Every structure is written in structure tokens, then in C-alpha cells.
């Protein structure tokens, strides 16, 4: 296995169990086109920039990060809904694609990409639940047609059998079977999300990418859907890649959690480990920023300066250095701005991409936390 990129070793590999999904050095750059005819490339949004991880069978890997961190793009590239720039994704020992980088290509390495027929087969194992339950269901199709589309596409042409299957799936996700002929607009957000889950389950997949599946739902409905996902995982032995920005939701559902910032994985560890002992300054700030629903705990926070930089023009060295509280505290070491930090294991199963992860201690965190005052950036 080639590990050329320093920020991209398959660190924090699962401790035990069969590996279901393996992502290696995944890169997705969206080219910004310009010029007279809109054909020439004038730049690139580095949405995903060298991410590696693996997910073992039956676990939930949570991916958190703020807007522009590339978590949604990462999910879509794994699903091959958008083509990767380079990198390799393996699902159930089947290589979906293995695309060389520019240098590797020059050195003569060829891309291997699963052909359309094989990819269609692979999709049975690889499904997705989307964020917006209003946009993810075709408004002109009935629930039966939506949930039954997967089986139909994969050759279950018998209408009666398909309807039986759909009814079973609707019951499984907690919907009334008699709603099979209704249209999406007749359902509430939570019910629509259940329809979306039923559609994903119709092909009996092993692996489901959940892309912010509850963030568009009302608070009281979120817990219903989270419990449903939990139950389905236990009953069907599903494996989830759970992408979300809500840290509490991710903590609840995940076994391991990866934190992304500007296209890079900055920390990856077991859920208890990362929430109790975050080792990356960004993870610390992210956790500190979550408002606690406990009015007695109006605690001091680590407030980051400034905005998230544009992924079209990411900072040099460590991408977080422009907002890092630790760097400031350590007297702005030069390394942060010049050297891309290695994604290294600081403990077995706990990887972090920070030169000074060892300096992240309760003392330094406490000193960085503050309250009040308009936060000038």
C-alpha cells in the first residue's frame, strides 16, 4: 500500500473486526473555471484534500466539522455521486475506484474504476440517507414508487412482490403500510425522513452514509429518527458513516468520531476518548462552542477568532493555524505556518494532525477559555 502523502496514513485503524470501508488518500478538488469560454481552470476548491480512514463492520463512524470542511463532499465521493480527483475507496473488499495523483500518473500508474455494471452491483451494499427530507424525495412519485425504485432498478420487476417488500419496509421504519400510494408532500419532515431511510434499506445494504439525517428535523422528531437508526443498526447489522455538524448527536450515535477542518481529517478516535480528551485545538474549540442546555453551566469558552478560511485558498502549513488558540499561546511557532502536520497516533486508536497535540492539556485549555467582550477577529 502506498503511503506517500505525509498527512494521509491510514492511521487510527480499527482495532478489531472486519473492515467494511477503506478510504485512502482521498482527494476532491472542484475546479473553478473561468476565461472567455469558461473552459480554462483558474483555481480549485480543495473540498477534500487527502483523507484516509476505515470503518469496520457494524460500527458507526461519525464525521463532524463546520461548513466547508468537506464532510458532505467526502460522503458523495465515497458513493461515487461525484468523481474523485484521486485516491482509493474499497467497500467490502471491492475497489470502487483507485485514481492516481498527478505525480503517480506521470510515473505511469493507471486508474482503476469499477465499470457501470459492477458499480451498479456495488450500490446494493452502499446506500445513502440525505439531509433534507423535502428535497430528497421526488415530489411526483408515490411512496411506493420511491421506496420500490431500488428493487425495480435491480431487477425486481414483479409489481406485487415489490409492493409486499415496500409494505414490509414501511412497517420497519414505523410508517403506516396503507400510506404506500400517498405522495411525499402529505407527510411531515420526520415521516419523510423515514421514507428516505426505507428507500436506502430497500436494497438490503451493509453500509449506509447518513448525511446530516436529522439536522433538518425538529428537536422532538430528531430523537425519534436517531432511535430508529440505532434500532435498524442493531437489527440489520448496518454500518454507518454518520456525517453531521451537531456534536451531541454525533456523540450519541457514534462509536468512533473523525473531526474535519478544511478538507482534512484533524482528529480521529474512539468517541469517549475524543469527547473527554480532545487532542486537537480545533476539536477543543468545537466542543467548547456547543451551548450546553443547562443554565447553571454558563461556562467559559474557547472562542475562536475569525472566520473559517475559504477552501479555495486554504492557509499554508497547518490549515487551522489562522484561528488556533494554542499557536498563539505557544508564541506562534514557525512550524505551524510552514509544515503540514502529520496525522499521527498519539495513543493507539487516537490520531491527530497537530504538531503540538501534547500541549493540549486542561491547563492550556482553561487559560484559553474566556468570557465576555465583543470578539474582534
Amino acid at each position: 500500500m502506498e503511503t506517500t502523502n505525509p498527512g494521509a496514513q491510514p492511521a487510527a485503524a480499527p482495532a478489531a473486526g472486519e473492515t467494511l470501508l477503506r478510504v485512502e488518500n482521498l482527494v476532491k478538488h472542484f475546479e473553478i473555471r473561468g476565461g472567455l469560454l469558461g473552459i480554462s481552470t483558474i483555481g480549485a476548491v480543495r473540498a477534500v484534500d487527502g483523507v484516509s480512514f476505515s470503518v469496520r463492520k457494524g460500527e458507526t463512524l461519525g464525521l463532524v466539522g463546520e461548513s466547508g470542511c468537506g464532510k458532505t463532499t467526502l460522503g458523495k465521493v465515497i458513493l461515487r455521486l461525484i468523481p474523485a480527483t484521486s485516491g482509493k475507496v474499497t467497500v467490502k473488499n471491492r475497489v470502487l475506484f483507485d485514481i492516481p495523483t498527478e505525480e503517480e500518473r506521470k510515473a505511469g500508474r493507471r486508474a482503476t474504476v469499477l465499470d457501470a455494471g459492477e458499480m451498479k452491483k456495488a450500490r446494493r451494499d452502499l446506500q445513502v440517507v440525505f439531509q433534507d427530507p423535502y428535497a430528497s424525495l421526488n415530489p411526483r412519485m408515490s411512496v411506493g414508487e420511491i421506496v420500490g425504485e431500488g428493487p425495480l432498478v435491480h431487477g425486481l420487476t414483479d409489481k406485487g412482490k415489490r409492493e409486499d417488500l415496500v409494505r414490509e419496509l414501511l412497517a420497519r421504519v414505523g410508517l403506516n403500510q396503507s400510506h404506500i400510494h400517498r405522495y411525499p408532500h402529505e407527510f411531515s419532515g420526520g415521516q419523510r425522513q423515514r421514507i428516505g431511510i426505507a428507500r436506502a434499506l430497500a436494497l438490503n445494504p451493509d453500509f449506509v452514509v447518513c448525511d446530516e439525517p436529522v439536522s433538518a428535523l425538529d428537536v422532538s422528531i430528531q430523537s425519534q429518527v436517531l432511535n430508529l437508526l440505532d434500532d435498524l443498526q442493531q437489527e440489520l447489522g448496518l454500518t454507518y458513516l454518520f456525517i453531521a455538524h451537531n456534536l451531541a448527536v454525533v456523540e450519541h450515535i457514534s462509536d468512533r468520531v473523525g473531526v474535519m477542518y478544511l478538507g482534512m481529517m484533524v482528529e480521529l478516535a474512539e468517541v469517549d476518548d475524543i469527547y473527554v480528551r480532545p487532542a486537537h485545538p480545533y476539536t477543543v474549540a468545537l466542543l467548547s462552542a456547543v451551548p450546553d442546555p443547562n443554565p447553571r453551566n454558563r461556562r467559559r469558552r474557547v472562542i475562536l477568532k475569525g472566520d473559517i478560511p475559504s477552501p479555495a485558498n486554504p492557509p499554508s502549513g497547518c490549515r487551522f493555524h489562522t484561528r488556533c488558540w494554542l499557536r498563539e499561546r505557544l508564541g506562534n511557532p514557525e512550524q505551524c505556518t510552514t509544515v503540514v502536520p502529520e496525522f499521527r497516533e498519539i495513543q493507539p486508536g487516537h490520531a491527530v494532525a497537530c504538531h503540538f497535540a501534547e500541549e493540549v492539556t486542561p491547563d492550556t485549555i482553561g487559560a484559553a477559555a474566556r468570557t465576555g467582550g465583543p470578539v474582534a477577529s
Partner: protein
Amino acid sequence: MTQRPTRTGELLSIDGLKTHFYTQDGVVKAVDGVSFGIRNGETLGVVGESGCGKSITALSVMRLIERPGRIVAGSIRLADRDLLALSDEEMRDVRGNAISMIFQEPMTSLNPVYPCGDQIAEAISLHEGIHRREAGDRAIEMLSQVGIPDAKRRAREYPHQLSGGMRQRVMIAMALSTNPELLIADEPTTALDVTIQAQILELMKALRERNRMAIMLITHDLGVIAEMADDVVVMYSGKVVESSDVNTVFEQPHHPYTKGLLASIPRLGEKRHRLEVIQGVVPNPLNLPKGCLFKRRCPSAMPVCDTPPPLQEIQPGHLSRCWLTPAGEPPEIGADAEAETAVAAAAALTVEA
């Protein structure tokens, strides 16, 4: 603060507000008999899920309800002015001066064709009748007060050139430029990333201290409420179901909806295996249940819940619209009391909000 203020000490008093929408399918009672008040310098959190009427309440205060909606009953008083009795022109003056509002998506309330600084300057010059150039300087000052770096340059930029967090800062600067007594913030941080949300909340706290203004903070995020609010109003399907100071609401909630809401949110550091859920969905506003609006989802529902529940005083300053006694027992008249008895009992138990 456990004592609920008397009506006289309030900056904003809403009494029996009803805002209804007349749609083709029927009347949607978006706000149906809402009463609460905000004191000077206080932050009141209004919490509820989509469709509970929290935003419509705010728009009613601003008198920005559009067809097919209409304020059909109630009163809204700001200090000693009856807002619903003002002419449109007087109301515009109130909106420009005494009350400001910020929205979830600042892009919709900023004019895309003018630089941010000009928009703030215009608000200031309208408000104080000062010259535009002077107002421009004040605008830059406002922008730097809300933590915008390099304010002079930023003032010349257009809204689309700014990030979401920056736009919300510009919105706040604009809202505060007229030094309002009351700021209505409708989901001010919902569209923002969590690290940016933390910045904006810190900013709002600091500005609240300095300007000593009252804030009506509307959000679905219980974390934001816990962080910011002094008092809390919980709304459900157009009605206030519970209100008290923030500690009471979070620590001794009385209404089963509030309890369910607090129990159902995943919290950091509390990894439970299963989340509590509130069963079912919010009722269709065109087909509301009789009696208590929450009864179909309520784990404590009783036959008596078919009669509209009383708004009881649980403790001084703590109100809950539920048949359960303050101790959480079924009411004295019994869980399956006759409708007539129940109506009379409800009237007797209900306190003036």
C-alpha cells in the same frame, strides 16, 4: 429571579394575542391567545418547534404580518404605547427606533445592491437626522463594535462578499445602530457554524450589558436558551404551554412537553443508549385536537385533557398549561371528570398571565 414581574414593570407586554391565517383550507391559528412580558434589560427566550407560532408572535410585535394573516385579538404594549393602535407611520417609527429585529438569514434583510456601511449609515441618519457623512463614520464605528476587523474597508463591501457570521454581525450592527429598547432576535445563530455561533452569542451578551436593552430571543435550540435567557416561554401549537425563569424551566419543568423536549435532546457528555422521544408529530394546524393540544403525544394524557387545560401557577412566576397539579398528580376533580366540572375547574385554576 423566581418572582414573575408585575405587568407594570414591563417594557413589552403581550396580552391575549391571536394572529390567525385565513387559508383556503381553513383558519390556521398560528398564535392563539399568547401572553407574556419582557422587562427592561431582560432576555426572554421563546422556545418551540417549527409551526409553534414563535416567529409569528415576533412578527406580530413588529406588525409585519402579511395576508392572509391578521392579528385578530389581544394587545401589544411597548412601555405605555399600544402598538396595535398606532398608525402605519407611527409603527414605522417604532420599528426604526424602539424595536429592532434580526433574522436567521441576514442575507434576506440586507439589500444586496448597497454596501453594508451605507445601509447602516442610512438607518442612523434616518434615526438621528444627522448628515450622511457623519452617519457613515458612525456606521464604521458600529461595525468595529460588533467585532468586524478592518471595519473601514468592510463598510464598503456588499453583503454577498461577507461570510455568514460577518453578515449576522452587520445585521446586529444595523439593528443596534438606532439604540433600540427591545431587540427581537429570531433564530439569530441557527444558520451559523457552531464556532461562529459562539462568537455571535458572546457578542450579543456583551452588547446587552453595554446597551442595557431587552432581548426577545426566539430559537429552537435549548442550549442557546440556557446560555442566554433570563426567563423562558415555551410555545406549542400557537399557545404558551410553560413559562418561568430559565433555571426552573430546565430543572423543574412541569409541562409534559417541556419535559419531553428536555429529555429528548442528546447532550454532550451524556452518552445514553436510547434517547427519550416525544411520540408522534406536531398536530396539523388545520385539524387541532379538542382540549389540550399536546394530549395525543403526552405520556400523562387523561380523559380530562379533552377539556382545555388551565394555565396554572405552579410556583410564583412559574406557569404551566396542564391539568396535572403542581406536584404532577392528576387534578383534584379527577382524571376523568365530566366536561362541565372540568370547564369550571379550569376557569378557577387559571391565573392571569
